[in-house]
């Protein structure tokens, strides 16, 4: 478990290193509203924990693990801002404060749900007053959807959308409960182009390839073993 403070630092460094050069201790201190000395101390700690590469006078870059956490927190922050403004109707300034607090406690699952619920990136309305809307959307897009046919056996995924020109087929898919937002598990893929066997909640459904290709999903790891 990473402490909120560590997360906050990593988020900040992630933002500063986006321009392509290492982050300076001074910049970090300004952003975090702390003294440069405590930043230096913190950087040593983070380096020991394996989140940053820190060389005195050259600055700070994130390790792979550090980047992962920093980017995730930033994504949650921006996503929450949009959620608070778009859906709950908070003011911009308020949303920033609130998002700063919530970003550390928001679970990955909820983050994903909010992301799907707001149907990113397309729902970014033109002329949206929220800054960096495009950024947010692309962050949300970091897990692109794939057709269900590409999901391997034993993986679970959230249905993102249906790609289908034929209304009759689309309605058949919906009527079986294959609806965006629901989580499914690919239990089996029958050989020779056979159907894909899915588990959605407690329903087991076999779906031919042509239907499966219409269902787009975003993979979320391995299925829970029963």
């Amino acid at each position, binding site marked *: 478990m990473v402490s909120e403070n560590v997360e906050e630092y990593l988020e900040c460094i992630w933002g500063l290193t986006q321009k392509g050069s290492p982050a300076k201790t001074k910049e970090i201190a300004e952003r975090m509203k702390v003294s440069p000395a405590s930043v230096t101390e913190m950087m040593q700690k983070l380096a020991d924990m394996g989140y940053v590469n820190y060389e005195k006078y050259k600055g700070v870059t994130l390790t792979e693990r550090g980047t992962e956490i920093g980017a995730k927190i930033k994504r949650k922050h921006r996503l929450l801002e949009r959620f608070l403004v778009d859906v709950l109707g908070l003011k911009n300034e308020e949303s920033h404060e609130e998002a700063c607090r919530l970003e550390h406690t928001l679970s990955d699952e909820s983050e994903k749900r909010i992301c799907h619920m707001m*149907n990113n990136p*397309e*729902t970014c309305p033109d002329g949206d007053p929220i800054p960096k809307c495009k950024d947010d959307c692309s962050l949300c897009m970091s897990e692109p959807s794939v057709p269900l046919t590409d999901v391997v056996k034993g993986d679970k995924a959230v249905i993102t*959308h*249906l790609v289908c020109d034929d*209304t*009759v087929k*689309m*309605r*058949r*898919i*919906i*009527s*079986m*409960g294959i*609806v*965006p*937002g*629901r989580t499914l598990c690919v239990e*089996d893929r*029958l*050989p*020779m*182009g*056979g*159907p894909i*066997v899915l588990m959605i*909640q*407690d*329903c*087991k*459904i*076999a*779906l*031919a*390839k*042509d*239907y499966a290709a219409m269902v787009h999903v975003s993979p979320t790891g391995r299925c829970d073993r*029963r």
Partner: protein
Amino acid sequence: MKDEVLVALLGHPNVGKSVVFSKLTGVSALSSNYPGTTVEFQEGRVVHEGVKIDIFDLPGTYGLTGVSEDEKVATKLLAEKNPDCVVVIADATRLEPSLVLTFQVLELGYPTILVLNQMDVARKRSTIDVNRLSEVLGIPVVPTVAITGEGLDEVVELISKAGGRRSDFSVAYDSHIEDILRSLSDLLPDWAINHPKRGALLKLLEGNEFFLEKFSEGLKAKVEAEKNRFEAHHKEAIEVHMNRDRYGEAGRIISEVISPIPRKMSRRERISELSLRPWPGIPILALVLLGVFSMVVFVGAYIETVFVSVYQDATGGFFDWMALSIGGDLGAALSAGLDLTMMSIVAIVIPYILLFYLVLAALEDTGYLPRVVILLDSVMQKFGLNGRSVIPMIVGSGCNVPAILATRVLGSRRERLILSSVIILAVPCGAQTVVILGLVGSYGSIYHVAAIYAILLALIVITAWMMHRLMKFEPIGLMIEVPDLTVPRLDNVLSKTYHRVKDFFIIAFPILLVSSIALELLMQYDVLDAMVDPFSPITVGLLGLPAVTIIALIFGVMRKEMSLQLLVVLFGTADFALAMTVDQMFVFSLVMATYVPCVSAFSVMFKEFGLKDSSKVIVGSIFISFMLGGLANFVLGLF
């Protein structure tokens, strides 16, 4: 309180709705562990403490969108009958989709009761807070176990005392959808439709045909425009979005009222899982199919022998007496016709068809059939059919009549026609099997029998493939719910078999009787004998058979199974080895197996596909069967 209540039963396929209906009303409804058994609706009545409750059972449906056939029937009947109460039957082990259906019923303003069926299984898997669910939905919720009758008294009690409850529960849709609903609602100040405005407008947005009729062209155009705008904005069709919201709501309720009990998979579930895997699923499948086949063929043959001797002992002399008392050729024809019809029931219907239906009913109730469909889907796809075609083909090995009716499970007419042709041409029905086994089986060798079945199998593959190529349409893929395996219940298996055999009698018996008597008359007046010589180029020339076999072949159009008995009469001996060589028997069996089906099968084809297409199939099958017979005769002549 009214003393007459009209109640509709609604639910997904395969939730045990038919069982609830039978238990409530005492009227038997067909139920299977296979989706789509209730095609039309059934009615029954129960009287409870002076209140007459009329119950009608709607076909199993996944929703009330009114798109697929079952949904159309369900929405239409609901609107026409306008029941006082809708009882939604849910499968407690998979509650979410049933909740979505319930939402739709509530939106349409029906007083509703939710029944959680199969609670016995559900209790082992999770704890369901029934009271909380009832509170959230605002309607009575009753847990039941329909097969044992648990909870059904309470359902009846509720219906007769309180009725269902209307609930103002409603799904909170996306704010855009809510905006559309509000703006449409403002356009319609005068409301004359027998449903809440919101519910009817939702149906309108979903494109339900039945509701579309109720609104003006102007409003429909406006709705269309709103839908397009929604889709452009959200990059998602409004129906998809509405269902996204419904399932979201259902998921939320589920997480509130259901807590799963941690447990290991039961043995039954493990077997359910394994039977679906290619390994060991496919070997199991082969064993099951082989088991069904040998059960019908070998056990059937044994029962036939016993029954026929009993029948002959019991009726001995009666038909002679009947012929004499009516007198003349007419008397002989009538009595022989009746005798042969009765005989075929004793020799074919009871041993083979009854047995076959028993096995089929048991197999259906285990929930194994969807697994057959899924495992064979990829192979069937190669021939332009999908896995669902396997069921009619299995049924066809009993009798072609129900098999052609069973093709209804396939989506398109095209697939149905391909499959029906394949069944008629190449799937040997019980009667055809009797001919094959009675001739080459008894007088030839196992290799002869195997050769005939190999040819038939090849014929299935080639015909399906050719028709698939010739008829260019896109085949519809497979989408099927997979139930858990269960142990079939004897009473359900028996009542189902009874209904099917009854149907068979109603369709086939009159045709059998009339055609038997007609043929007997033709025989008595020597009309058939006159055909022997003109047809000899085909029988003798092409097929290398004795000329008299033409009579058996013509007879075969009416009733295949009797052609063997007829051969006995024609040859004047029951030992076919004296009259035909094994090669001739092989050719005769092959022709019989591929030759036109009986009159009953033709009449069903005609009913389902019209004169033009069914004639093509019939003429085609006669042609192919003679060509095959000729070819076999030629090849056998080479050795």
